[in-house]
């Protein structure tokens, strides 16, 4: 499915990067250590994290991650939102935990 399909999901709010909604999603990766994510996440995966600093966009960009979901309503700095818009990488926010969200997305056939 494409990232656009997630916009109908009530657990997710699109914060930035609407110009990247046509990106394909193939699976989910969860992690908060940036280098670990860079080394292990596969391209086109949806990335669930509680990290919100600017560098998450660089990681997503380099590793060809399709979109980022910041969980547990972690505060997202303005500069991160701006960068997501500049790079066209969809950035969502969710109040759920990474675990809860992954279960729900799996049920919704994102995997």
């Amino acid at each position, binding site marked *: 499915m494409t990232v656009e399909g997630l916009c109908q999901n009530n657990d997710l709010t699109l914060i930035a990067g609407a110009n990247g909604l046509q990106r394909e999603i193939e699976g989910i990766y969860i992690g908060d250590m940036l*280098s670990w994510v860079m080394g292990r996440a596969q391209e086109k995966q949806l990335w669930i994290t509680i*990290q919100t600093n*600017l560098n998450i966009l660089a*990681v997503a960009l*380099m590793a060809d991650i399709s979109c980022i979901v910041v969980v547990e309503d972690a505060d997202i700095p303005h500069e991160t939102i701006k960068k997501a818009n500049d790079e066209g990488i969809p950035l969502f926010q969710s109040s759920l935990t990474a675990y809860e969200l992954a279960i729900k997305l799996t049920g919704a056939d994102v995997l």
Partner: protein
Amino acid sequence: MLLREFYTPKDLAEQISSTNSDGVVTIQRAYAVEKNDFKRAGEVSSQIKKIMKQVGVRPDIIRRVSVAAYEAEMNIIIHSDGGSIEFILNPEIIELVILDRGPGIADIQLAMKEGYSTASKDVRELGFGAGMGLPNMKRCSDEFVIESEVGKFTKLQIIFHQST
């Protein structure tokens, strides 16, 4: 060994494209990376990725080079007193040469071990310091050479074969 001078910010995005007698084009760029410059972190690797896309490098190779370039860029920002990333692209290979001034690495074998990190608490809170930087770079590459002198420098030479 290290007779070349370090790049300064004014050299940023300095570009040398040359064509040899056989018509083979080489793209060469050199970028300065500053210590603790977290705001601009990832800019050099983004530029390198853009060049590879424009030239039409194979997507899986673009990804491997991009990941290595980002890890190298972050290592300079986090661990060194500043340095440079040189990017060389020709039809056979892509090469990254990363050189920094700084503390160097006392035990390279230990530094290459997954999970080993000397990153500070502040840097770890940003999500760095997983101890995966050097191992990631090596895994992404076809050839990986690291040399370092404590108190002076660290130099990485990372080569990617375009034919593989």
